[in-house]
């Protein structure tokens, strides 16, 4: 009987978790420390329009939208996973130097406006509508 009650409790906690709001507004202070440092480093002047925590069944992520339309996404530890500046160039230093130099070599006039990364690869979008994919070792693997 006790086991049964325990089991039921687990089930309802799960259900309650799942059905909770997916996006919760947060303040800058509620971001992981690493994320806060990232923001101070690269977006010192930008003003936050909206910061949110996204809760999924398996993972937790954060995103921050600035008043200039730029958006940064972080994983649960505060590492950035996506930086998107819509049409303006990304702040210098976000794109890893190896990728930066590859872009310079291939498209000297282009600017990176969006970068995404996961545990396998990097995706970089340029303002000339070209999308580049790099592997873990920062080698260019795909051009779209």
């Amino acid at each position: 009987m006790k086991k049964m009650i325990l089991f039921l409790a687990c089930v309802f906690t799960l259900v309650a978790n799942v059905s909770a709001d997916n996006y919760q507004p947060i303040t800058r202070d509620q971001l992981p420390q690493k994320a806060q440092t990232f923001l101070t480093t690269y977006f010192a002047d930008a003003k936050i329009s909206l910061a949110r925590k996204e809760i999924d069944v398996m993972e937790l992520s954060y995103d921050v939208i600035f008043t200039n339309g730029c958006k940064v996404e972080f994983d649960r530890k505060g590492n950035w996973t996506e930086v998107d500046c819509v049409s303006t160039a990304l702040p210098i230093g976000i794109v890893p130097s190896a990728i930066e130099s590859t872009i310079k070599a291939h498209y000297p006039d282009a600017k990176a406006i969006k970068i995404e990364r996961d545990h396998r690869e990097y995706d970089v979008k340029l303002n000339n509508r070209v999308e580049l994919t790099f592997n873990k070792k920062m080698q260019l693997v795909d051009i779209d």
Partner: protein
Amino acid sequence: MKLTTHAIRSLIAPLALIFTIWATVFYFILSDELIDEVDDQLEVYSEQIIRQWLAGETLPDSTDGSNNTYYIRPLSSTELSMGKRVEYEFKNVYIDSRREEEPARVMHTIFEHNDGSHWKLTVMTPVYERNEVISTILIATLILLVLMLVAIIATFAWAFFKHMQPLYRVLDHLDNYAIGKRQPLNNDTNVTEFQRLNASVEDCIDRVERAYERERRFIGDAAHELQTPLAICQNRIEMMMEDDALTEQQMIELGKMQQTMAELIRLNKTLLFLSKIENNQFIESTEVDVNAKLHRQIEMLAEVYEAKGIYVNLYEKGQWTLNANEELITSLISNLMRNAYLHNCPEGSIDIYIKEGALCVANTGDNQPLDKEKLFDRFYKAHHGKKHSNGLGLSIVKAICEASHLNITYSFEGDKHLFSVFC
């Protein structure tokens, strides 16, 4: 209640509970996932609008044909302090394209402009299909649930019944087992527990059989061993009685001793006889004319018990010829008849019915039925203190019936004790 019923009953409750929980959880997760999907769309949509709006780009048409609508309005400081930054709700919204109110999922997002002013973006998408989808899911889940429950129980019942067959065979075996008449147990199984059960049952029957055999042999052996000492004792008394020097008083005492010896010898003989019947030593069988035997016994007993004044009625409804041991059948009739005489009341009566395959003897006597359970037991005496009854007569009748494949029943009908022997 049967074991299968028990097992199925105890299976239904937990299964029903688990399935109900499972279905509830499944239902909630699924319907939540549906909202999630809509919410995700709304989120992407609102993020796009906010960022385009903040970047000063052209906003998409608020009615772009996708049924999604949005509007942005500035917020006063009071509204800002009250409202949540991100909020979802269900609401009936008037949809232009459909020209009616439809349920819709609405998302409010409050964001800040570069100048410090706050704005609220409201995006909405109609979800008129959501309720239908959910009720379809609900019904499908319930139907599947019931089907699954039925399927599981049916499978379980089938498997249980199939695997329990050895158990039922053992039970049948035990039901059909009669002491001293052992049948082989045909119950092949590779289930360890049933193999153990088989072995235990066989072992148990072995022990019962051995005990029964020992008891049977003991009675025969004991009675047999008593023969010589009894003979010596009896003959010594007889020798003494031939002595002319005895006084009359001594003669009387010897007479009484001899009487007691005679009873002892008779008892021993009867036990031997019983033991012989039970050991199937009367193998020879012939066509026995039961009617003729009955006539002879009635004639002889009428002479012997003349003094009791008992009236005997014979109803001959047919001729019974039986293939059996003649000595046993004679003894059977004689014992039945003597029982009827012995336990009768003065001026009583004995009714005898005979037809093909059946013989009934009914006698008046004590006005209460005898104990059916103990009636045929050795040394059972319904009326204590009755002389010249060693309590073995009906045991012999029973043993003869068993040895001759006959049935015997007792009943008390209309103040008469009725014994029926039939094929």
